[in-house]
């Protein structure tokens, strides 16, 4: 399907929205409430475009492309509408970028930057206090722009059904259950809301003050906690050699989600109790040895014992924290090499 965006002819697929088609072709349309994971809502009015033959301004996130459609993404009227949105949002709470955790990764900040808005033209509103009650999520309501992404994530992506909007109009706010502090709610602290928040309203509590986005190295890795293999990015403070926080990657298998362990239980790599070398007990004491020595020692002992007492004295335990392939290799080794069926797994109930 062929359409025209800003005078450029682009090809799009049936069912795509104008926004998707534009982004595919590198044409920038600003958004605040749209996220690929939570879909279009038409709330923020940042993605407004003009479409020939359609009355008024249209949200590009909700309108599907049509053959021969002629779209304009930049005009005086559109800039004015977007400026109004950002201006009103900046005045709707305390959007102080100076000490905000989200600075540099904030979509509202980006929008203000692109539109050249330094300060809101309206007096800044007083809003509700911060909810610091929960273990891992810091909810600073004065930075909430009510885009609803956290709510969509909580209800439609991870289906925990904790967050929702309460009240109406300018009183609208995001609440947990029946407006209780997050710690008292049914929230399981998966942090999906943090993952989706475009501003600094919902942030990782443990990461506060541990560095902003441009100060941290991004390391893509696989979550080690279970066999699912969730893909995540560690934000690492190289200077202090520690993980500042963890975010989910928008790829299979987890597609932007993580559980509470994957997202928040990341201190173990730098735990002093962590084994950093193979060890062998010598004269009653564990001593650091090389991998070669450790493996040779283990292989030798297994061989000796199995030869002496038969294969059934051997048994192997798989783990839920390693992959299916690893577990497969364990059982194969036990059955084919050792010659016993003594195979078990922590997830067997």
């Amino acid at each position, binding site marked *: 399907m062929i359409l025209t965006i800003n005078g450029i002819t682009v090809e799009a697929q049936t069912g795509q929205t104008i926004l998707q088609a534009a982004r595919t072709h590198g044409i920038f349309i600003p958004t605040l409430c749209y996220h690929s994971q939570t879909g279009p809502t*038409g*709330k923020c*009015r940042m993605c407004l475009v003009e479409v020939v033959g359609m009355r*008024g301004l249209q949200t590009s996130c909700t309108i599907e492309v049509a053959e021969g459609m002629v779209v304009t993404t930049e005009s005086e009227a559109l800039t004015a509408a977007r400026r109004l949105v950002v201006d009103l949002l900046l005045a709707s709470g305390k959007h102080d970028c100076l000490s905000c955790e989200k600075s540099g990764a904030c979509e509202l900040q980006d929008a203000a930057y692109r539109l050249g808005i330094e300060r809101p033209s309206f007096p800044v509103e007083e809003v509700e206090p911060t909810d610091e009650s929960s273990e891992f999520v810091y909810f600073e309501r004065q930075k909430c722009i009510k885009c609803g992404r956290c709510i969509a994530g909580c209800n439609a992506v991870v289906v925990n059904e904790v967050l929702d*909007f309460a009240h*109406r*109009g*300018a009183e609208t706010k995001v609440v947990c259950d029946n407006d209780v502090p997050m710690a008292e709610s049914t929230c399981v602290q998966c942090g999906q809301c943090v993952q989706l928040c475009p501003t600094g309203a919902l942030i990782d509590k443990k990461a506060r003050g541990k560095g902003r986005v441009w100060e941290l190295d991004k390391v893509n890795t696989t979550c080690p906690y279970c066999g699912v293999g969730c893909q995540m990015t560690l934000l690492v403070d190289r200077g202090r050699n520690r993980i500042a926080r963890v975010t989910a990657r928008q790829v299979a298998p987890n597609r932007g989600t993580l559980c509470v362990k994957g997202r928040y239980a990341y201190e173990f790599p730098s735990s002093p109790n962590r084994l950093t070398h193979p060890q062998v007990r010598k004269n009653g004491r564990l001593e650091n040895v090389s991998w070669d020595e450790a493996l040779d020692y283990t292989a030798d002992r297994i061989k000796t014992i199995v030869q002496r007492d038969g294969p059934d004295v051997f048994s192997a335990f798989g783990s839920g924290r390693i992959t299916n392939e690893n577990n497969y290799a364990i059982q194969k080794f036990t059955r084919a090499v050792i010659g016993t069926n003594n195979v078990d797994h922590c997830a067997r109930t």
Partner: protein
Amino acid sequence: MKNSVPKIATRADLDRVRDAARSAPDKDVREKILVCTGGGCMAAGAKAIKTALTGELKKQGLEKEVALVETGCLGPCVVGPVLVMSKERVFYQGVAPADAAEIVQEHIVKGRIIERLAWKEGPHKTPLPLQAEIPFFKRQTKIVLRNCGVIDPNSIDDYIGHDGYQAVAQALFSMTPETVIEEMKKSGLRGRGGAGFPTHLKWAMARKSPGEVKYILCNADEGDPGAFMDRSVLEGDPHAVIEGMLIGGYAIGAHQGYVYVRAEYPLAVERLQRAIEAASERGLLGENILGSGFNFALEIRKGSGAFVCGEETALMASIEGNRGEPRPRPPYPALKGLWRRPTVLNNVETFANVPFIIARGGAAYSALGTERSKGSKVFALAGAITISGLVEVPVGTPLEDLIYEIGGGIKGGRNFKAAQIGGPSGGCIPREHIAVPLDYESLNALGAIMGSGGLVVMDESACMVDVARFFMEFVQEESCGKCVPCREGTKRMLDILNKICAGDGCPEDLALLQELGGQIKAASLCGLGQTAPNPVLSTMRHFRDEYEAHIVHKRCPAGVCAALLVYSITDACTGCGACKRACPSAAIAGSAKVKHIIDPALCIRCGACFKACKFGAVLKA
């Protein structure tokens, strides 16, 4: 008795029931007293009057000869409770339970008209007892309200007796869905909920939409301040709405309908519920209606008082059990509406027109109105008008006629200043445009809209900045909060208006209001936000001098904005001390029989002195 009545299974059955209903009462009953039980008269005590009349009739042994019937709104709510003696259609107003004896004695027994309770017309208060002579009624053309004040809304037989359900029978047996839509096209009927979208187009789109399951919805979530047309229709003639929905359902291919009615209308809900039950019991709702093979079920869904749920997509979200927030269009409801199925939504008044159009033909309807706006329109007159109430006139009737010839002019003989039409989405019409014909195009040209027909009349004592502030406060509170321009922008506009009314406005505020208003209209998601700035923009257009007086001269010309008033005492003061005693802030000084003085620094501008003075010596400016 009613329960034993057999189903109306065929068209012939319907005709039989109609004929029986027409002739039945005439046998024994020589007079029928129609007591208005519309919301206004109920509030004024209609039930007590009915009880008193029942007692009186019994006392006189007339209960068999005289029927006492509850009916729907007759229109002139301000003179309620009202009743009509149906034989000659003698109209009595301001009736009290104590009048029951006289009504029975004089009117029923002796056949004498009670002038005391009759309508009073003109400066000489000439009594006009016959409804047909009263200008308020004479100038009206009742199509939507044809049965209000005529039939008993709780009696399906009464409705059938007045040719009720004949239109749906005609549609089912002599018309195809396409010819029904064609007839609607000929009628030129446009949606009466506010936007004026041609009804036949909506129906035709939904008819053509692919899908087995379709819905037809009735919007009875009337929420404009000062509007009560839909409530009155549901209270006075619920079967007309049911019949209109049946015809609409047949036309688009829907077998399920919902009426979304606000829970604040308990009487309307009760009567509609009773009407749905009666129609279902008789087989006029349900399966194989009149033996035609057409199935249609109807249910009520109650709204919990959110103005935004009158917006069609928010209404659908609410019926689905979700938060009442609008959805972006397209997709339009005719394609993907309730539960993502093709859906038609019309309001109460629109549906109430449908049986008339089908029974009498589209041409009969389009004979009324103007070139582009056809038919009749119900208006709710409120505010500084002599006869506040409900009226129905051909579309295109000049505003002036509505106010002076039907509504009896401005209360207290004061001067007309403006009329707010179309509620919070509408605009103000100033004195110089009082001759404007009330049709969609002419009103749009003045920055107002037809809206649902709420018409608030204002005299010179109204401050237009305050009026704009009132409506802005309303929409600001009723904004659902979904989209940014409406949620945050209306609040900012209200802040500015509050500032101006408090005397803290600056000249830049006018430009800012203009700009904000324009942006909110352009960028908002739904009709609420897209029209929310209208009252401000229209008052700024027609009454800019009043805004300037507030901002530049720090004065409120109408004397409404408390912060801008200056109270002083003139030489007419007798030194009685009434003002001094009434003043809550001890701002008035003066000894007995000596002219008192107000200290402006202490004065809190509450107006207590103004009210307390018996000599008109307190000046408010």
